[in-house]
């Protein structure tokens, strides 16, 4: 039939069934079902990427608006990331969610979000993309407010409304793009006919800026980043991992699609929009790091870090240079794995110790050595120390930034990235240091080995290894992408 639909529809339907089924399931059965669904979906995605036909027009929404799917390199990158993070975080959740109510609901929405993300990756035109973008918001906000505390519910709603706000701002742009393009199908290099100098073009620049802002909400770009630090700590840890590693990347994906596949980089290059975008991205990079540095609560600190790191990617996109773009894509993967791991680790710490603040975690490295080793490795990755993934992506970003035709930003950009890297070290490493070197007054007698369950450690380990592998063998990815990136720019 339509094999490309399988990885989208299967988890959505499975999730819906879970939600609609009214009786409570035995926990083992529930986790069994969810686990197998996750694995099957993962397998489906991989096989579709490998085997299936690459495009499909499903049906026409209106006369000229098809629901259209198409798989290209970008889809591959993002769906691989999705699969890895979702499967890992899913299994992690089986252990973590023990102490939460209404697990069935969580898994249901989790599966739906998985399917929707696949749809987002495979979307072949802007309307299809927008459809899944909205669905993603709607299916992921229940994950945020899952715990049901007042704080969580408010955070969930905040996330929802920020996201919708962004989505609608982008929709405004879509309305206008539709008029100026013959189709909204994603085409490498853009499909916009108008020139930026014409009156229409000037308006379209405004539209482009609006869409950047709009989709930027999801990617936590300043000034609409405020939902991120609220939503992440409120959500259960595996949900935060998925959120931070993948779902926010939907905003990045959206910007790639809109800027490089609809507007075309040439349309924006050198315009005030690019300048503004660069400024915003850099401001976000710096501000996110600063805020993270000041933040005592671990998960919140990680959330601010996400804000900052996502804007690395956005900076890469905004430079509109091959290397920078490549760096951005690499950072999507690297940050995805790293931040996923970090949040899972934070979850594991909360699960075993119940502590949330960094300053409470003296000697945590002694209690949970394996976990904390992983933490240290990925932290180094995020800071950008070779040979981890973060180094390679930042390298490309810096190269691209220096080479890009972006005026003064050529110097400011890499500088900000560097400063931010320092700050990253500043906010991530103290935990390692305190964890492993609790100081003289630490009571070693009270020390207990509290390594979390296998279901938790294995996903953490797996993702840590992946993040290192990217750093060791980036050529696999860059080779795969080079040709295609040059076609884009």
């Amino acid at each position, binding site marked *: 039939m339509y094999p490309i639909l399988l990885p989208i529809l299967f988890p959505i339907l499975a999730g819906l069934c879970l939600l609609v089924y009214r009786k409570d399931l035995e926990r083992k059965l529930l986790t069994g079902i969810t686990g197998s669904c996750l694995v099957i979906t993962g397998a489906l995605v991989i096989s579709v990427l490998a085997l299936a036909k690459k495009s499909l027009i499903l049906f026409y929404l209106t*006369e000229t608006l098809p629901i259209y799917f198409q798989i290209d390199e970008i889809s591959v990158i993002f769906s691989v990331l999705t699969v890895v993070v979702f499967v890992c975080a899913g299994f992690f959740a089986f252990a973590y969610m023990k102490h939460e109510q209404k697990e069935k609901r969580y898994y249901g929405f989790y599966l739906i979000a998985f399917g929707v993300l696949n749809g987002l990756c495979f979307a072949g035109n802007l309307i299809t993309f927008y459809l899944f973008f909205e669905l993603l918001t709607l299916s992921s906000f229940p994950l945020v407010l899952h715990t049901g505390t007042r704080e969580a519910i408010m955070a969930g709603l905040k996330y929802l409304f920020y996201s919708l706000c962004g989505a609608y701002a982008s*929709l405004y742009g879509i309305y206008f793009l539709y008029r100026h393009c013959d189709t909204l199908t994603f085409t490498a290099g853009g499909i916009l006919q108008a020139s930026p100098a014409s009156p229409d073009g000037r308006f379209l620049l405004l539209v482009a800026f609006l869409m950047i802002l709009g989709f930027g909400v999801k990617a936590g770009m300043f000034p609409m980043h405020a939902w991120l630090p609220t939503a992440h700590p409120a959500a259960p840890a595996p949900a935060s991992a998925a959120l931070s590693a993948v779902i926010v990347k939907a905003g990045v994906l959206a910007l790639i699609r809109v800027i490089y596949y609809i507007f075309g980089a040439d349309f924006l290059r050198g315009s005030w929009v690019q300048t503004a975008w660069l400024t915003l991205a850099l401001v976000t990079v710096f501000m996110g790091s600063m805020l993270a540095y000041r933040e005592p609560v671990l998960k919140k600190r990680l959330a601010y870090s996400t804000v900052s790191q996502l804007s690395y990617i956005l900076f890469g996109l905004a430079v509109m240079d091959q290397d920078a773009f490549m760096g951005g894509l690499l950072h999507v993967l690297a940050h995805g794995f790293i931040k996923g791991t970090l949040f899972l680790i934070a979850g594991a710490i909360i699960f075993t110790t119940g502590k949330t603040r960094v300053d409470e975690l003296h000697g945590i490295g002694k209690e949970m050595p394996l976990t904390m080793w992983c933490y240290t490795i990925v932290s180094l990755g995020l800071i950008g120390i070779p040979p981890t993934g973060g180094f390679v992506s930042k390298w490309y970003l810096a190269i691209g930034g220096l080479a890009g035709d972006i005026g003064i930003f050529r110097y400011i950009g890499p500088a900000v990235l560097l400063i931010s890297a320092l700050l990253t070290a500043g906010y991530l490493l103290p935990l390692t240091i305190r964890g492993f070197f609790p100081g003289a007054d630490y009571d070693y007698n009270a020390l207990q080995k509290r390594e979390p369950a296998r279901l938790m450690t294995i996903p953490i380990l797996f993702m840590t290894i992946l993040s290192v592998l990217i750093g060791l063998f980036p050529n696999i990815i860059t080779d795969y992408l080079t040709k295609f990136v040059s076609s884009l720019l």
Partner: protein
Amino acid sequence: MIICIILLPIIAGILVPLLPFHKRCHKEIFLEGAVILNSILVWYLLLHHSESTFLLAHFTGDLNISFRVDGMSMVFAGLVSGLWPFATLYAFEYMTKEKHENSFFLFYTMTYGVTLGIAFAANLLTMYFFYELLTLVTVPLVMHTLTREAVLASRKYLYYSLGGAAFAFIGLIMVIVYGNTTDFILGGVLDLAKIGDRTNVLLLIYVMAFMGFGVKAAVCPFNSWLPQAGVAPTPVTALLHAVAVVKSGAFAIIRLTYYSFGTEFLRGTWAQTTVMIVVMFTIVYGCSRAVKETHIKRRLAYSTISNLSYILFGAVIMTPLGLTGAITHLVFHAVMKISSFFCAGAIMHQTDKRYVHELNGLGYRMPCVFGIFTISALALMGVPGLAGFISKWNLAQAAVDSQNPLAYGGIACLLISALLTAIYMLSIVVRAFFPGKDFDDSSLQDAHDPNWKMLLPLFVFTVFIILFGIHSQSIVNFFYDVAAGVY
């Protein structure tokens, strides 16, 4: 044929208190039968309509009461006749808890006929006549409970509607004096030679007439009757104050703009700018009030206010595309809003809860109702794949296509309103399904989904919401043809 369609419900309504029904179910069968029969007749008529005009009575001069089936009437009559049987079915169940059933069904069924009269009116006078009549037959429905609140609401409703009609009347006069005919002809009937240099006066009158008819369509600042009228029983609020009555206002404005004054005359004038600003303001205003409101039905009523102005926004773009958008939203919003109102009614009927903050955790007790409510909420927000997205898309495309900078702002209003819609609709959903940690639902043990008479309409409407959202091509094409004057 047309006259028979209009009279049948009126007569059936009058018969309700007169016929001796032994059992309630006999009355139900009688009414439902009459309504369904009438709907079938309407659809038969729509599918086999002829171009000819049916003259009923002569007033003075060339003013007459006459009927005709054209594109717009097909849309409106088709919509109304599609919804009425379901609403009646729903009303049977709902009214088991209310008093004075007979008088309720009397006026409820009569309204059907009167609304069809508006739909089929062939000229401005006929429409005006049925328009006034609509006010009169619906007042008793608003007043139904006879509480002080209801009396105040109906009073306000009357003042507003009759007052609005008074200003619409002035527009009617202008068309009589400066038009070639009062018949509805797409493109307008004004005779430019007669107007001479009085263009500005005519535009002023247009604005007045627009606001006059706009009272029924709840245009700001004449909207406050609508939330108050929510004291009426839910079938009334749902069908009349979300569809029949308020859409008659929008319908009348479309008739006035496209079929009497003519878009050629109005487009690009200050009159268009004025009404567009008013409409844009209403879109945002209605939504923001809805966010503040905690009474469910009133919240939905404010939402209706805003959505009605979506329709009007389409209408005042004054292009065929704009009309298409307006018609699309006219139809789609009807289905979405009636669905959400029926959900609210079901909640009130089953649990007597009427404020948003009382709904915590009800979603698990009444999954069908809240599931459907969620779908209609998403549709109203304009999530792709549901009806609301298509209508907003059409409206926005029309606005973009019109090259009118103000209309660009209008799109922004649509989107702001969509965001606010999300806030006021989803906050209900969130409350119902996510009551919070350790929520004690023992107080909700008695609440459960209503019986089939209430659920059937809900399911049918939901199916249509999804259907319109997924496959809208053929129906939108039809609307486009209507707007282009094919029918």
